[in-house]
C-alpha cells in the first residue's frame, strides 16, 4: 500500500500480511489515519471527516492512495488521488468511469470507538446498520430507499402546500415502498437473530441471551409480508392526516422505525452496561463481516483502538474471534504486546515501519511498492 500526501503521511509504503496486522504507537502518530486511508480506498469517503482538504498533508496540494488488492478471483491495483476540488479513481491502471464497478473491488468493515453508539445512540445508526446489511444481499435496496425518500419529501411538500389530493397519491406510493423496505429489514432481523445470540455468547463468554426486535412505527404485527405491512401503512395514514397536516410532515414510516437489542428480554438501550453495549457493537461488526464474506472472499476488518473500548477479558475474547476470521485484519493499538501470529508495525511521526525488521537505514523505500489487501 502506498500513501503520498495523505494526512500525517507525506510518503509511506507498507507491505501488509494477509492475516492480522497491528499498528501501534503513541497517540497522534497517525495510526487511525492509516486505517482511514484503507477505508477511503474502499468507500471513497472517510469515517472521520467530510472535508476533503483535511485529508491532504499540510502544505501539500495532492494526496494519493494505492493498494494492491489480492483476491481469489484475481488481483488488481486500486488507486485514488485527490486534491481540494477533484478526485481521480483508477482500477488496474485504468480510469474508472463507473463507480459502481469500483465499489465492489475492496470491501471493508469498520470497528471504531464510536461504534458503541449502535446501542445507545439515535435510531438512525441502527437503521443504517440494517439497511447496509440488507444491501449486501439485495443491491436494489438502495433504489427502494432512494425512491421512498423522494416520495416522502414529495408528500411533505404537498402537506405544507395544503394539497391533500397530492399528499394522498404520494402516501400510496410510500405505502408500497415502505412495505417492501420493512419486509426486507424484518426478514434480515429474523435471519440474524439466532446467529447474533450465539456469536454474542462467544464474544462475551457469558450466557446472556441477546435478541433483536424490529420496531415498526405503524405496524405492530410481527410480519414480513410486504403487502400486509404496506396495507397497514395505508390504513394508518388517513388517521394521522390531521396531525401530519398540522406538523407539515409525515409522522410514520420506515424513517421512524428502530432496531431494538434485548438482553435477557430487557431493552439494551436504557438498561445495558457500557461493557454489554460494547459487546453488542462488536457482535454486530462480526455479523456484518460474515454477511460480506461471499464465495471465499472476506472483507478487510478495520479495528480502531480496541483497548479504549474493551476491558481485558472482552478484548482477549474479541481477539480470539479475529484470529479465527478468514479475512485480513488491520488493527490499531497503543500497546505493542501481542501473542498472536501477525505483523506488527510501529507508527511514529508520519512513518510506518514493520516492528520485526525495523530499518536502520531507508531500507523500506526500495521494497515493493504495493501491499496486499486481501
Amino acid at each position: 500500500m502506498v500513501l503520498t500526501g495523505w494526512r500525517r503521511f507525506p510518503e509511506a509504503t507498507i507491505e501488509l500480511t494477509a492475516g492480522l496486522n497491528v499498528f501501534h504507537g503513541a497517540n497522534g502518530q497517525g495510526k487511525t489515519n492509516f486505517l482511514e486511508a484503507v477505508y477511503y480506498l474502499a468507500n471513497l469517503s472517510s469515517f472521520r471527516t467530510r472535508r476533503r482538504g483535511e485529508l491532504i498533508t499540510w502544505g501539500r496540494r495532492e494526496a494519493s492512495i494505492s493498494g494492491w488488492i489480492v483476491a481469489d478471483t484475481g488481483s488488481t491495483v486500486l488507486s485514488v488521488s485527490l486534491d481540494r476540488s477533484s478526485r481521480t479513481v483508477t482500477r488496474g491502471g485504468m480510469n474508472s468511469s463507473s463507480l459502481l464497478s469500483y465499489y465492489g473491488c475492496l470491501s471493508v468493515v469498520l470497528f471504531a470507538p464510536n461504534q458503541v453508539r449502535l446501542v445507545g445512540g439515535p435510531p438512525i445508526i441502527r437503521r443504517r446498520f440494517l439497511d447496509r446489511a440488507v444491501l449486501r444481499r439485495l443491491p436494489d435496496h438502495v433504489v427502494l430507499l432512494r425512491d421512498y425518500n423522494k416520495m416522502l419529501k414529495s408528500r411533505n411538500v404537498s402537506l405544507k402546500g395544503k394539497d391533500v389530493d397530492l399528499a394522498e397519491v404520494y402516501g400510496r406510493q410510500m405505502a408500497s415502498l415502505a412495505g417492501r423496505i420493512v419486509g426486507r429489514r424484518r426478514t434480515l432481523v429474523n435471519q440474524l437473530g439466532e446467529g447474533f445470540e450465539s456469536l454474542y455468547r462467544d464474544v462475551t463468554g457469558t450466557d446472556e441471551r441477546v435478541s433483536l426486535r424490529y420496531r415498526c412505527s405503524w405496524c405492530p404485527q410481527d410480519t414480513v409480508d410486504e403487502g400486509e405491512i404496506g396495507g397497514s401503512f395505508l390504513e394508518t395514514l388517513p388517521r394521522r392526516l390531521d396531525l401530519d397536516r398540522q406538523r407539515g410532515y409525515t409522522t410514520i414510516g420506515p424513517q421512524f422505525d428502530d432496531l431494538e437489542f434485548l438482553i435477557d428480554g430487557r431493552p439494551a438501550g436504557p438498561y445495558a452496561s457500557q461493557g454489554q453495549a460494547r459487546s453488542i457493537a462488536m457482535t454486530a461488526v462480526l455479523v456484518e463481516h460474515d454477511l460480506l464474506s461471499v464465495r471465499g472472499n472476506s472483507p478487510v476488518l478495520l479495528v480502531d483502538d480496541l483497548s479504549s473500548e474493551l476491558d481485558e477479558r472482552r478484548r482477549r475474547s474479541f481477539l480470539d474471534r479475529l484470529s479465527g476470521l478468514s479475512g485480513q485484519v488491520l488493527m490499531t493499538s497503543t500497546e505493542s504486546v501481542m501473542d498472536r501470529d501477525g505483523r506488527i508495525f510501529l507508527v511514529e511521526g508520519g512513518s510506518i515501519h514493520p516492528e520485526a525488521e525495523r530499518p536502520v537505514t531507508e531500507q523500506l523505500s526500495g521494497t515493493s511498492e504495493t501491499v496486499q489487501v486481501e
Partner: protein
Amino acid sequence: MIDAMDSDPIQRLIAHLTQLPGIGEKTATRLTMHILAGQKEFARALAKSLEDVADQVRLCSQCCTFTVRDPCVICSDDNRDDSIICLVARPQDIDAIERTGQFHGRYHVLHGLLSPLDGIGPEDLKIGEFLTRLRQTPIKEVILATSPSIEGEATAMYVANLLKPLGVEVTRIAAGMPIGGELEYSDSMTVGRALQDRRAMR
C-alpha cells in the same frame, strides 16, 4: 442569463448553446466553430429555422402538443377514434406510440410530470385542459401512458383519482420484461415489477 449586448457574436452564440440540455462549453464551442467554418447559407437557414419554430409553433388547442396548424394533424384526423384518449407526458411520447401503429384514438400531452420537489404541481401541467376536454366530449376510456418511473406513477395515480367521478374507464400501460429481453440480464426492479403484474395464461 446571457448578456444580449455582448459585443462578440461568437461568445454570444457559445453562451446561448450552452443553455441547451446536454451541451457544455466544449461542445458549444465546437458547434460554433463548425458553423463558422461552413457555408454562410447554413448559418442563415439555421437562424431562420429557429425563428420559424419560435413564431409558428404553438400548442394544439385540443391535445396541447406542439403544432403549426391548429388543431394538430392527429386531432383533425376524422378517421381516429374519439372515444379513447391516451395521456402522455411529452409530445415526443406521441411519436413513440404512433410508431407502434396499434393506437387509433386521440392524445393529450401533459408537458411534464408532477414533481413537488422541483416546484411542479398539478397547475403546472395541462391537467385542467384535459378535464375540460373530457367534459366537452364523451369519452369511454383514458389510457395513462406516463412512464413507469415513480414520478410517472404518481402523476398517473393523481389523474386517475381526478377521473374517478367522471365515470370513464381508466387504464394504465403495463410495465415489465422488455420484448426479446433475457431474464438473467434484467435488473431486479424490472423483474420484480414483471412478477407483480403477471397475468394468467389463456
